[in-house]
């Protein structure tokens, strides 16, 4: 799963298939010790699945992990399901391109929404005892709205899983030289085994394990990088120096260190975004849409053993989310100054399309010299660097932004440590995929199969359906992966699904949860027309690229701005439709909304706890830290 803003990095990852044309040597060669580390990891995750099979016999155990998770386990699983390896590499690459601005996707793009989920929304999800987000829509708006959400979510999950599977296999081919089919089959079979055997409990257990491995494998890179760069002062100084020779876009190198200062105009920052898009589009619509309504992550919190644990889980997760830039953004920034070619010159990374255009033949010469020249002319590569690429030979090949993190790993991690780093990438991929298939299985079984196909099955029948849906879901994902391999253009469309669905869903959930007047018909129509509106905006820009200026309200806007503004317009559209339709239709009696809507629900009283165990204390701390960090990097 791409994480917070899938479509935001779609622009860079969408061209990953082009790397299949890449014929250079892999970046790294694993030794026996590294391979042993990776093999032990696979053995451990399957052992966990086999061990937990005996504890996943009922539907409550299989789909909801028995609702037995502590706040820590639910919280770490919540943040780990989002921490996919493509997200790690994609955002490290974005930090290389855009500087510290990429951190917005970790801070304002996550923290306020996570705190809001814990303190405000979780009681409603938890008290109504829903098994899924479409399940909540069923209780609040009825079967029609729920079915729209369930079917769109199921399709999105399975296709996203396939696309991510393929993208990860491409990365493994480029970094390690692994065969595409080998990576796809081995990783997907492992995920199918451990989730199919142990259900959500196994997925959650493994996500916590994967979270620790991701940090254990990736943390050393920024530590060693900062030592070599001479600390924060040295890093800043070198980036400023490099930017003077690199950008040529009118954006100052200083902009790479400011999160807010240069967001007053689209052209004043390297990302080409405006603060209104970051605050309202990213910070509100996309972030709240993902963290509070995407069942992939919400399912983890619903598995908590009581309401307090369910409220604490996202707040615990928010601390780790806030720390993630240390292993993602910082390596990207360090890559700007530390990555070198074998001759000691600075290695400049470029987009995947440029790498593909300059792919080399087996004897080290550029295959399409004219195409390569045209592609490089659009980059900030110096004339010397361009000449070197065209001359061909060893160490002449280009590398893409998304390879910033693997390149940094190869730079600092020798045998053993490299195995840990690669295991971290594989673990990130598998945690994301397990999240996709476990959420798909629950929505398919409860909200589609049970709701629309077979309402009278036994409990064991639904567990069997759940297990089978995981196997079938993984098989369809593999099919989607091969489809993308042979029809690259599909990737952009699949990655856009998230951003198309999430904004209308957020509008439906927020009005449903906080406005007693919202009616069943309004929920259904608002959701459906919002999806159509959002898809239309996407297709408009896809077919007429100049329409980006209309969607993002500026001719200086870049693709990153489109995603945040499209989400904002789709949310506003859905909200207007819901409000107008609600006022024109008859509201449900208040008594029917108990447990579903703020103002109509008497929330259960929780046992008093000391202040240091209170979710409010920790929420306050995370908000203070969030504000402090934004001011520090203003």
């Amino acid at each position, binding site marked *: 799963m791409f994480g917070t803003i899938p479509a935001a990095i779609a622009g860079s990852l969408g061209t990953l298939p082009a790397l299949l044309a890449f014929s250079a040597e892999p970046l790294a060669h694993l030794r026996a*010790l590294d391979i*042993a*580390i990776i093999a*032990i*990891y696979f053995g*451990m995750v399957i052992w*966990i699945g086999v*061990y*937990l099979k005996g*504890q996943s016999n009922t539907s409550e155990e299989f789909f909801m992990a*028995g609702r*037995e*998770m*502590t706040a820590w*386990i639910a919280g770490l699983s919540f943040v780990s399901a989002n921490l996919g390896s493509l997200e790690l590499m994609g955002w490290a690459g974005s930090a290389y391109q855009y500087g510290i601005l990429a951190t917005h996707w970790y801070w304002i793009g996550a923290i306020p929404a996570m705190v809001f989920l814990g303190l405000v929304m979780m009681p409603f999800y938890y008290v109504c005892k829903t098994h899924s987000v479409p399940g909540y829509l069923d209780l609040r708006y009825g079967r029609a709205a729920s079915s729209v959400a369930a079917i769109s979510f199921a399709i999105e999950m399975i296709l996203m899983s396939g696309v991510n599977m393929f993208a990860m296999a491409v990365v493994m081919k480029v970094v390690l030289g692994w065969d595409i089919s080998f990576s796809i089959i081995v990783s997907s079979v492992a995920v199918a085994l451990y989730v199919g055997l142990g259900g959500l*409990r196994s997925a959650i*257990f493994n996500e*916590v*394990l994967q979270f*620790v*491995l991701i940090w*254990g494998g990736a943390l*050393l890179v920024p530590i*060693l990088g900062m*030592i*070599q760069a001479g600390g924060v002062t040295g890093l800043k100084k070198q980036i400023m120096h490099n930017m003077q020779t690199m950008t040529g876009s009118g954006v100052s190198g200083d902009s790479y260190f400011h999160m807010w200062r240069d967001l007053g105009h689209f052209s004043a920052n390297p990302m080409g975004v405006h603060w209104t898009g970051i605050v309202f589009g990213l910070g509100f619509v996309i972030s709240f849409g993902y963290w509070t309504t995407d069942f992939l992550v919400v399912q983890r919190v619903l598995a908590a*053993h009581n309401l307090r644990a369910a409220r604490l889980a996202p707040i615990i997760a928010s601390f780790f989310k806030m720390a993630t830039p240390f292993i993602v953004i910082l390596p990207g920034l360090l890559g700007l100054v530390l990555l070198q070619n074998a001759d000691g010159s600075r290695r400049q990374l470029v987009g995947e399309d440029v790498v593909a255009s300059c792919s080399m033949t087996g004897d080290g010469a550029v295959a399409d010299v004219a195409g390569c020249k045209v592609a490089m002319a659009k980059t900030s590569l110096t004339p010397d660097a361009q000449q070197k690429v065209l001359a061909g030979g060893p160490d002449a090949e280009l590398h893409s932004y998304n390879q910033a993190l693997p390149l940094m790993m*190869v*730079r*600092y*991690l*020798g*045998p*053993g*440590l490299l195995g*840990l780093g690669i295991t971290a990438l594989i673990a990130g991929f598998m945690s994301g995929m397990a999240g996709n298939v476990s959420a798909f299985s629950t929505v398919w079984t409860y909200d589609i199969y049970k709701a629309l196909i077979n309402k009278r099955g036994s409990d064991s029948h639904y567990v069997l359906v759940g297990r089978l849906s995981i196997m079938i879901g993984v098989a369809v994902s593999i099919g989607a992966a091969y489809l993308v391999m042979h029809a690259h253009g599909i990737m952009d469309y699949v990655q856009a699904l998230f951003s198309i669905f999430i904004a209308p869903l957020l509008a439906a959930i927020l009005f449903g949860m906080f406005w007693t007047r919202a009616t069943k018909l309004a929920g259904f129509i608002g959701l459906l027309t919002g999806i159509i509106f959002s898809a239309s905006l996407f297709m408009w820009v896809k077919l007429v690229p100049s329409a980006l200026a209309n969607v993002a309200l500026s001719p200086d806007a870049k693709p990153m701005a489109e995603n945040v503004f499209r989400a904002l317009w789709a949310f506003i559209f859905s909200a207007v439709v819901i409000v107008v339709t609600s006022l024109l239709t008859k509201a449900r009696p208040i008594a029917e909304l108990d447990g579903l809507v703020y103002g109509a629900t008497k929330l259960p009283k929780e046992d008093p706890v000391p202040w240091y165990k209170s979710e409010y204390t920790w929420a306050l701390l995370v908000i203070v830290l969030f504000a402090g960090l934004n001011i520090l990097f203003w």
Partner: protein
Amino acid sequence: MHGSKIPIWFFIGVLLLIYGGMTFCYGIYEWQTGSYPPLVQLTQLHAPVWWGGVLGLLGLFYVVKFRPGRAGK
């Protein structure tokens, strides 16, 4: 973790202990023989030794604290 005999933290401890031990031992071998990988930077800091040690100790702590017979105490 309720309802399971082996806590997740024990699994994590086992894995970290194994990984830490393997990395630490290789780091010591590397240090003693001086056979550093040619393209890796900052080998003089002996990262496999101290990072492997940290992971191993963390793993040992989790294995002891969350060993199955002790879970729930």
